[in-house]
């Protein structure tokens, strides 16, 4: 019975069902949500959070095992951290005691430096190419719209935005980010499983990666080059006496004319 329970929980919660991909960027639970597993158990789909949201940020999930539960899709409408939904939740799926916006943990924003205009500008990649995407400009919209400026995001050298630890993942920066079709700043949801555990292809990629690294660590023999050689050398410790070096040729004991 416990085996069956485990199997079903794996399928439903850890995204190991190839049909259900539980981990999606820019898809968050409302503020104050407990971790995904308890949330799915406690949420009774009464949609009170959805009704009370003054911004219309909270949407109802469609077909699938999470049907009827609330989500925030920051690409369309981010959470503005008014904290109206938390105090209304009847079962505690959203934390009722939560009042301060900076204490929520919906996720963490991450800036894609290959898309962000400010970062592109910094990299002297300012020439517009044919696609018109790489324009490069001191945009910094994410910094300007952030409700927790200097706690969640800062302007490094007054030039480019950097996400700090205080980020709660409200997603306003994602909503306002001007890059299209993909936003340069995306929110990684908290408590919703990890990318490497999500879905069939993610898992396959992870296994592939793990098996490749396992072979490398098991058999260190062979010729090392480049960075791997440097890494090997950096592991040599100088405190435990001299390392043994074996040479394929004989060292001459005595050299003529050198005494």
């Amino acid at each position: 019975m416990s085996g069956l329970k485990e199997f079903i929980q794996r399928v439903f919660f850890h995204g190991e069902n190839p049909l259900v991909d539980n981990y999606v960027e820019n898809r968050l639970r409302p503020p104050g949500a407990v971790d995904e597993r308890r949330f799915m158990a406690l949420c009774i789909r009464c949609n009170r959070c959805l009704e009370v949201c003054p911004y219309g940020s909270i949407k109802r999930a469609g077909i699938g095992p999470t049907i009827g539960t609330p989500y925030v899709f920051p690409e369309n409408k981010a959470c503005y951290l008014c904290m109206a939904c938390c105090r209304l939740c009847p079962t505690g799926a959203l934390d009722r005691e939560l009042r301060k916006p900076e204490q929520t943990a919906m996720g963490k924003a991450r800036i894609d430096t290959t898309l962000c205009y400010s970062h592109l500008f910094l990299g002297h990649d300012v020439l517009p190419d044919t696609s018109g995407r790489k324009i490069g400009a001191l945009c910094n919209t994410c910094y300007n719209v952030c409700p927790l400026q200097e706690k969640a995001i800062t302007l490094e050298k007054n030039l480019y935005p950097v996400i700090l630890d205080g980020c709660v993942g409200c997603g306003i920066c994602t909503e306002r980010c001007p890059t299209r079709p993909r936003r340069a700043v995306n929110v990684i949801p908290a408590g919703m499983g990890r990318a490497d555990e999500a879905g069939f292809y993610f898992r396959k990629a992870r296994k592939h990666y793990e098996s490749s690294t396992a072979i490398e660590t098991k058999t260190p023999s062979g010729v090392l080059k480049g960075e791997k050689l440097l890494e090997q050398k950096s592991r040599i410790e100088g405190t435990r006496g001299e390392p043994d070096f074996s040479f394929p040729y004989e060292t001459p004991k005595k050299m003529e004319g050198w005494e």
Partner: protein
Amino acid sequence: MYGPYRRAAQTGTFIVMFLIPVLNLYEIYTLTGTFYAINIGRLGIADPVVILQAIFAAGELSVPLASAALFPVALALAFGRVWCGWMCPYHLLADVASWTRGLFRAKIIGKTGAGSLPVTSSFTANAGRFGFLVLGTAFAGAIGIPVLNYVNAPGIVSTEAMIFVKERALSIEFVFLAVLVILELTLAPRFWCRLFCPTGALLSLFRMRVTLRVATTIPTPRSACCREKRCTEVCPMGLEAFREGSDLLCTNCGRCVDACASVQGPGRLRFTGFRT
């Protein structure tokens, strides 16, 4: 006569269902929620089945969880399953379906009445819905998801109303409702409330000696009872009201009492319970 009052209460609940999202659009949050769980001011009310599943799925019993189910349980202890008979929006839909079915039967086949119910024995019907409730709760506890919420008919009706008002759209659960109503119209009249509904099943368990119920004043109304059995004919749950007035299936809708009104004498059906 209880019929008009019952219709008024049902229609009122149906209107409130649409009114809640309208009020919320005008930023009045005195009434929030759907019939899964609803807030009236600071009073939190939730469907007991929903709470039962949340307790099993999350493996914990907290004060806000348990207190939300108190009001429906108290209502059931006092008045029986009046939620089903007098308020439930799905029951109103089933009533309309049954009425439509009767109309078509009269026109096409020439027979009056809504036709025979799928399962006639009240014991089998009770066993079916309690089995469904127990299985659903056990499955919810096993996988940690309140699965019976996917088939909670009144909750889905009110959720669809809310979505319709707020977003001018319907969700996929509307298909479930449509299938239920079509089945009630064609093959199996009243099957959901009688054979499956977990909310009704759980609510019918809360009863005491003083709970409102239908009974006659005569202890064994065999000979004195009216021979036409009008009460049995009108009962939507397929009960013989003079005999099974205190059955778990009874919703206290009062139709049998209304039908019995023409009968004079001591054998008349009436609501008893804390009144006597």
